[in-house]
């Protein structure tokens, strides 16, 4: 279980009052609306799936995609920068492999948000909405799962449409106001050392001793019969088939879906390329993400913790002499492997890859050699399906403190990601009591320069 408590002590429940829905009078017409909404036409999807590599804690923009080699040393920091495949564009020195792919990437250097606290910042970045006490919003993955889940996804895969690999943030529930079946299914969220390196174990995927699939199907049928009987004469007929049991059964029944979790099917060369054996880095998560995307899972969050570097940013590069598993080199390797592997399998053009965290870090190094929270200017990266690669969008100022041009809010980012995935940002979803809510906030801009 990932604790919802972060370094600054704010907890999710401080601002969430789930629902907050005071309204009454849901009519049959309201109930019918979500289904009707499925007929809304969105933009042509440029990507079928999305892999979000979430750098939890807030990655430093200065050590990743927006180095300031000409700034004074207290801003520049202890690490250097390197040239990339894009002339005149430099990345942090650890991102060697990623730098070579820069002509395929779109880097945004002018992200800006007012929220410099983990829970609030995470809510804003992962949902596109600033947190409010009245309503918790769904993350991108939940929205996509909901939109895709209803009609066109049935029978495509038994894997949950919204998955998180290596854990999930404790800052948001993930599903927000959407139904529980949009909650991210977390694989490999165990504490470090609780699972063999490079493997994911999902418990209870195979029938208990003495049982088989027909027995499980009959059990599910008996439960459904009992539920039908007990709701006879109740005007609140909201219960259908128990969604937890239906989803669990579908997954158990699909051998092909379950094989996705078995990384031992991959050759050693692939393991090495991703850096799968590298402790708790994102390598194994990225490899599993590729296997899930191959099986048409719409949204996978690869969760990477440890980016809240209040002290010693140099440890991002190396924690001890000869260290190959530090945060930045591990990310570099996993990200480059994911992009090239997807590309070789002709999946990159239909997979949107996003790398982001909840904010950046203070441009001035603090007394502990670290950087504190800095939401005013930070960076993120997009590549793959529908993204116009080989560009840097926007810029921060000389010291990386504020956007110097083309400021991008998390709401804009949300509108852009949804557009790439074929969901109209203005499309309305409905809360449990029928209240309409836009997929991305009113006023959010689609960054058309980023679209291929």
């Amino acid at each position, binding site marked *: 279980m990932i604790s919802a408590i972060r370094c600054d002590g704010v907890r999710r429940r401080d601002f969430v009052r789930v629902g907050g829905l*005071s*309204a*009454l009078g849901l009519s049959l017409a309201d109930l019918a609306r979500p289904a009707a909404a499925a007929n809304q036409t969105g933009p042509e999807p440029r990507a079928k799936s999305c892999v979000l590599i979430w750098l939890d804690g807030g990655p430093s923009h200065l050590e990743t995609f927006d180095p300031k080699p000409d700034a004074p040393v207290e801003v520049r920091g202890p690490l250097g920068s390197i040239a990339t495949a894009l002339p005149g564009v430099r990345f942090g020195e650890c991102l060697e492999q990623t730098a070579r792919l820069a002509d395929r990437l779109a880097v945004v250097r002018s992200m800006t948000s007012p929220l410099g606290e983990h829970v609030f910042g995470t809510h804003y970045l992962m949902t596109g909405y600033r947190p409010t006490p009245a309503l918790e919003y769904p993350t991108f993955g939940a929205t996509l799962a909901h939109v895709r889940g209803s009609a066109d996804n049935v029978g495509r895969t038994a894997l949950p449409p919204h998955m998180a690999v290596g854990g999930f943030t404790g800052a948001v529930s993930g599903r927000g106001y959407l139904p529980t079946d949009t909650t991210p299914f977390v694989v490999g969220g165990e504490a470090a050392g609780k699972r063999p390196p490079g493997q994911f174990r999902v*418990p*209870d995927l195979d029938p208990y001793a003495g049982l088989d699939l027909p027995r499980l199907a009959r059990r599910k049928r008996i*439960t459904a019969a009992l539920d039908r009987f007990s709701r006879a004469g*109740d005007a609140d007929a909201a219960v259908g088939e128990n969604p937890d049991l239906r989803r669990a*059964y579908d997954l158990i029944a699909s051998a092909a879906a379950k094989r996705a979790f078995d990384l031992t099917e991959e050759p050693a060369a692939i393991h090495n390329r991703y850096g799968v054996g590298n402790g708790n880095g994102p390598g194994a998560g990225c490899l599993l993400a590729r296997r899930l995307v191959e099986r048409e899972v719409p949204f996978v969050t690869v969760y990477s913790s440890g980016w809240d570097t209040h002290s010693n940013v140099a440890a991002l590069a190396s924690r001890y002499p000869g260290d190959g598993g530090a945060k930045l080199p591990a990310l570099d390797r996993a990200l480059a492997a994911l992009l090239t592997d997807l590309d070789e399998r002709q999946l990159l053009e239909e997979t949107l890859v996003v790398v982001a965290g909840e904010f950046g870090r203070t441009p001035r190094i603090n007394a502990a050699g670290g950087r504190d929270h800095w939401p005013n200017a930070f960076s993120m990266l997009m590549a793959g399906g529908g993204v116009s690669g080989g560009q840097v969008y926007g810029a921060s100022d000389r010291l990386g403190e504020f956007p110097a041009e083309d400021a991008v809010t998390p709401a804009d980012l949300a509108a852009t990601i949804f557009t790439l995935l074929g969901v109209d940002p203005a499309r309305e979803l409905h809360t449990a009591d029928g209240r309409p809510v836009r997929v991305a906030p009113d006023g959010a801009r689609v960054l058309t320069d980023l679209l291929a």
Partner: protein
Amino acid sequence: MLPLLALLILAAAADPAGASEPGIAVDFDTDVLPILTRSGCNAGACHGAAAGRGGFSLSLYGGDPAADYAAIARELKGRRVNPGRPNDSLLLLKSTESIGHGGGPVLEFDGQAHRLLRRWIAAGAVRSPSRSLIGLTVTPERRTVPVNQATPLRALAQYDDGTERDVTRWTSFTAEDPAVVRVEADADPAAPTAAALRPGRHVVVARHRDRVHAVELIAPRVGAAPDLSAVGRANFIDDHVLAALADLHLPASPPAGDAAFLRRVTLGLTGRLPTPAIAETFLADRDPDKRAKRVDALLASEAFVQYWTHQLAELLRVRPREPGGADAQAYHEWLADRLREGAGLDSIVRAALRATGDARENGPPNFHRVGGDPRGRAEFVSEALMGVRLRCANCHNHPLDRWTQDDFHGLAASLARFKAGSVVRPDPGAEVLHPGTGEPARPKLPGGAYLAAGDDGPEALADWLVSPENPYLAEAFVNRLWKALIGRGLVEPADDFRATNPATHPALLKELANDFVAHGYDLRHTLRTIALSAAYARSAAALPGNAADDRFLSHFPRTPLPPAALADAVTDVLGVGERYGDAPPGTRAVELADATAASLTLDLLGRCGREESCESTATPDGLRKGLHLFNGPWLNARITAPNGRLRTLLAAGTSPEKIVERFYLVALTRKPTASEAAHWTAELAGISDEAARTTFLEDFVWGLLTCDEFVTNH
């Protein structure tokens, strides 16, 4: 001449307070600050943020007038105000965006607010408080009004000089949920209105300087008012509940049958299913008073003590802090003893707050070990005992309520006087730093007096909490009792009482609390009152007209069983126990003193680990739980256990139909209906082979334990 005169008259009419009339002095605290609040300048997203904004920092919603005056009139070499040339004051230039302002224009140039600020500056921009704000009345407090019909809103401020004035113009009105309420203030800021867009109960938050109030709008369901005259009234609860149903035009579902009532009340009061023997006796009993008698029997039972010890332990966050957990064990046992002897909540709270001694041997001293440092203790005490999230006032005055930083740090200071190690000792010299002043905080009762130098903090706090005039403890606790029986608190979340989060039935909450206090803070008395109300006895089946209601008791809400109660219910149905950590075999989940005892079952069911308030435990992962129900040992290993209920019945030669009926009775406290019986008989008739019949019955039992009727209270 005439047009100008007309304009002056108009201005005076729109400003009944007269503060914008030339000749009447503009007061900083009571005229200027409300403008800043009304315009959003000192909100948390702008200059009211802890770090300010753009180098200009104001206290949140004007909670600290002296600091705000210094920021406006003294900082930045006084450039924010220029009495010689008022129009050159940054305060005016920025707010009207005559020069660049990150927040855009917030005041209309030459509008009423702008003119008022200019006059204040021209008069020297002084702060010589002529009066202070002591109260705010907002009308209506609560109004029932049809959908789409506008309700006029009005705010009156009271001052310490005995005067009162209409400050509607200087009050902001915001819908808590803008999608369902339309607030119209632009057309005439002095005469704002609010209209509900959907049926239901809605809240509009009124804010004047640092005061907040809620306006409740109750919009009835469209259609004729239902006839509620024949609906039963058992006690005062029903008067309040039926009044709300009448307001909202919600019909009431008919009363639940005896079997449904028995299951509901047994689960609610003892966290257990009724045994088949009790069910059969109860259903056959012709005594018209049998429900009251059953409630009394349940309240007197040891199962009640166990279950409510578990509930109190969740509230008080009882968990082991010592190796072996002797501390949690001692605390758990102490709570059970208090409940067994019928102690009132007041005496339990008083004993816990005053306790010192070895926490491994004595229960009560453990109270002070929750929360860690004194500020953490203040959060815990305010949430658990007052139902208030005082922690918001750690960094700034509470933005949605009256609590100040002085209240929070004052409470922390009064709780600091213990050293809370394995042995809890008095620590009279301990202090807490007040971040606002940089000085040690003065011990203080929340919203009340500072403690005198010699006063014992916890003792004074206990006196204050249990004094009959103090509403917090009783209201917060009866709300939890209500929630435990009915599934939803009158106030939700149960630890978030505040002026802007009113109860669904405010007068009922007050009356329940008063009744609780009048009866010696006796849990059993209040639980009995709730359990014997007609509202509690309503059917869980919704009518077409009330299906959307989840909080007004038009029908009884279906609520998932708490994790421990569900685990125990499964154990009772299967007749095979489950092990929790290293607790002795036979220990029930609700009996566990150690909330962290290893149990995958309780983890998957979403138990509260008690590190934080149990109000907000995350919903468990449904898919993971589903996988475990199908393929894990929790149900599977015990359905077929040789000593379990199913195998025992089979070994005794019981017929399959009888086995089905027996399990219905144990799990659902009823027999199968005729159509259910026919359904299962038909299913069984298709199976001739005895082994196959057995596996069908195994599958039936599994289905029973996962069906909605079993896993909820209803």
